């Protein structure tokens, strides 16, 4: 009975406070005046360690609706809806409308929304797209660093990378996790062919070694290939890394638009690609055309275990292994050329979370993201649905509840051995990607030579840069 009275009194007190600060609080930083509300919340949820300022704003009384968009599969959907529900329970005045779907067309839709000013308050964004969205004199996203968002759980070295959301000292996005390229191996096939081919993926190896092994694998059994990859993944994973190893940098200088690679260096890059195809290290372009983008696991030959391995993003490892669950898997070392300037391989995030600068409820949106990234209950619900969490606390929780995939963890530790450089806006833009993919495809079909492809690439890249009007 006593407890009930206290609870009733507390509830009444809370209502009064909400009414008191409701009218003027939502858009302003309410500072310390809401401390008592904060405490009440903490009592309500013993596990919650909500951040300071953002959470305060969210507890103000006025009814607020936020739109939150993301892409992803069903597992991610359920977990994210779970976190939304938890947050809404803690903040009854905030209603979050989820807008979710597949990754197909997501970026296009978001770009259109941003152009029209109808974007959601909170957005999940592909880091590759983010660089296009921050070009020019646009200012779509809130600088979370300036707003005092609690980043204490993140490694500063990690979040300060541009690909992880830090643009010119402004944190425009929060990395949802740690992903990166991986060489996913079908361990059964590796063991079976080890003596015959003589490969060893636990030791350092070069691109030439890899090409030689690929040739031998296909000669040994012509239904087998060493690597499953399509033109998109060759561009997204191999070409950029090869270029970094060769020159120590990305394709272009983003400040000046200057090309970093000479025709000879481009020729060398494309010769590597040509060797992949000519030696049957990867399946023919014509075959892989039906399995483009990151849909590698839909290839029936992958499902049938006809590949020794595949270069993929480690956020896709779960999909890839689920497609052929009978096999055992591991993450191999990654190729580095002799005399490489840098290793090039590095971890980055698979998605960013950003808040629209035009949102009418920026504080509430930040409060939600604070809960999303910093609250233990949210971390437990989310698990690894957006890859290995980027916060130390998130990783600890995932380890404790046993959702961290050992192969994913292995691939993350493989990445730690290499040094790398920052990607740049120009080299990772969609137009540049397309230019390179077209050339890779043409080489795969044998309709162009590395020399011709190199010349054409340089001229197309120069055209692209000149269309941007960089001074």
């Amino acid at each position, binding site marked *: 009975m006593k407890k009930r009275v206290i609870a009733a009194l507390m509830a009444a007190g809370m209502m009064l406070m909400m009414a008191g600060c409701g009218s003027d609080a939502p858009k302003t930083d309410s500072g310390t005046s809401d401390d008592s509300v904060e405490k009440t919340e903490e009592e309500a949820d013993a596990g919650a360690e909500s951040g300071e300022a953002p959470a305060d704003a969210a507890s103000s009384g006025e009814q607020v609706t936020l739109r939150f968009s993301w892409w992803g599969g069903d597992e991610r959907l359920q977990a994210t809806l779970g976190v939304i529900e938890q947050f809404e329970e803690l903040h009854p005045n905030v209603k979050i409308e989820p807008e979710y779907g597949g990754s197909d067309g997501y970026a*296009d839709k978001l*770009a*259109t929304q*941003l*152009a029209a000013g109808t974007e959601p308050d909170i957005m999940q964004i592909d880091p590759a797209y983010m660089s*296009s*969205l*921050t*070009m*020019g*004199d*646009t200012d779509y996203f809130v600088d979370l660093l300036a707003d005092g968002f609690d980043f204490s759980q993140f490694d500063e070295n990690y979040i300060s990378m541009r690909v992880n959301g830090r643009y010119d000292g402004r944190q425009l996005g929060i990395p949802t996790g740690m992903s990166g390229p991986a060489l996913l191996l079908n361990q059964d096939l590796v063991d079976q062919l080890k003596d015959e081919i003589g490969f060893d993926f636990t030791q350092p190896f070069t691109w030439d070694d890899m090409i030689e092994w690929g040739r031998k694998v296909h000669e040994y059994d012509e239904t087998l290939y060493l690597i499953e990859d399509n033109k998109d993944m060759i561009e997204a994973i191999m070409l950029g890394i090869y270029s970094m190893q060769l020159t120590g940098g990305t394709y272009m200088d983003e400040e000046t638009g200057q090309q970093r690679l000479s025709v000879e260096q481009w020729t060398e890059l494309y010769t590597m690609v040509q060797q992949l195809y000519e030696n049957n290290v990867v399946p*023919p*372009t*014509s*075959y*892989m*055309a*039906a399995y*483009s983008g990151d849909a590698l696991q839909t290839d*029936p030959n992958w499902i049938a275990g006809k590949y020794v391995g595949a270069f993929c993003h480690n956020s896709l490892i779960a999909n890839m292994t689920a497609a052929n669950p009978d096999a055992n898997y591991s993450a191999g070392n990654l190729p580095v050329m002799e005399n490489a300037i840098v290793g090039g391989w590095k971890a980055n995030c698979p998605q960013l979370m950003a808040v629209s600068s035009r949102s009418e409820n920026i504080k509430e949106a930040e409060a939600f993201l604070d809960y999303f990234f910093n609250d233990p209950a949210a971390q437990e619900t989310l698990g690894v649905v957006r890859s290995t969490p980027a916060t130390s606390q998130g990783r600890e929780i995932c380890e404790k509840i046993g959702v961290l995939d050992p192969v994913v963890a292995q691939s993350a530790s493989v990445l730690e051995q290499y040094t790398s450089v920052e990607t740049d806006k120009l080299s990772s833009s*969609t*137009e540049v990607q*397309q230019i390179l993919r*077209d050339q890779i*495809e*043409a080489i795969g*079909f044998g*309709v162009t030579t590395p020399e011709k492809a190199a010349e054409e690439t340089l001229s197309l890249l120069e*055209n692209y840069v000149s*269309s941007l009007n960089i001074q």
Partner: protein
Amino acid sequence: MKTNGKKTGSGRIAYRKRDRVAYLYLLPWLIGLVMLQFFPFFSSLYYSFTDYKVTGGMNWIGLDNYIRLFTKDADFHNSLKVTVLYTLYTVPLKLTMALAIAMFLNRDIKGINLIRTLYYIPSLFGGSVAIAVLWKLMFLDNGVINAMLTALHLPNIQFWGDHRYALKTICSLEIWQFGSSMVMFLAALKNVPKELYEAADIDGSGKIAKFIHVTLPQISPIIFFTLIMQTIQALQNFTSAFVITNGGPLKSTYVLGMMLYKEGFAYFNMGYASSISWVIFAMIVVVTLLLFRSSSAWVFYEDEEK
């Protein structure tokens, strides 16, 4: 009838009032027309003379986009070629197929309505994504078509992966959806006066002569109409190229609609994309005008003779 010719003053007011009410009823449609048709139409024309990027500002650059399209952009020349080829493959074949099936169905046999419905079904799906996905799966390396080829001891074909076949395979999807033209032809065939055939019989015409001298002239207005509609549709094709091949391989299915989409929504070059859309529009206008010009030579209208 009495008010005709000499309207009274009060009658005119009544008319005006009625007109105003009519406009009121038309208003929802007019608003839609202005906002959803005229506004995008003219703003895209304006954008096509600017360097408007979704992620940046907008500057007037005159004819630069069009000059770049026609003189510098190799992709555009390729896309133009692919679009023209697509139109040349699909339109004549689709019309021929529709007419042939319509002639076959234009008879009184048992269950003819069911057969007609079955032939029309593919067209019900329209340009839908689902049917494009189905087509993709059927023509995959391990799809049903290749399985049939294997059963017939024929070599497998990479329908989507081989740049020599991808466009033709996409065309076959379009041709397969011949139903709407077929229904029009069927209606037209039913309207051909029987006396004409009887007269031709008396004159001793064979089946082919009857088809050429009676059927074709009689249904030529419908052929003309479907020809125009199908040509416009073919020049605007996008769905199948986007869903099945994404313009590849080697840009062999990179139709203008696909290029327009990529420039606008993948690279955010809205100004440039707008200029592509206006080129497509100009092409459609020119082709339609040419068809209309040619129509006096081959389209036969019964009332013209009167």
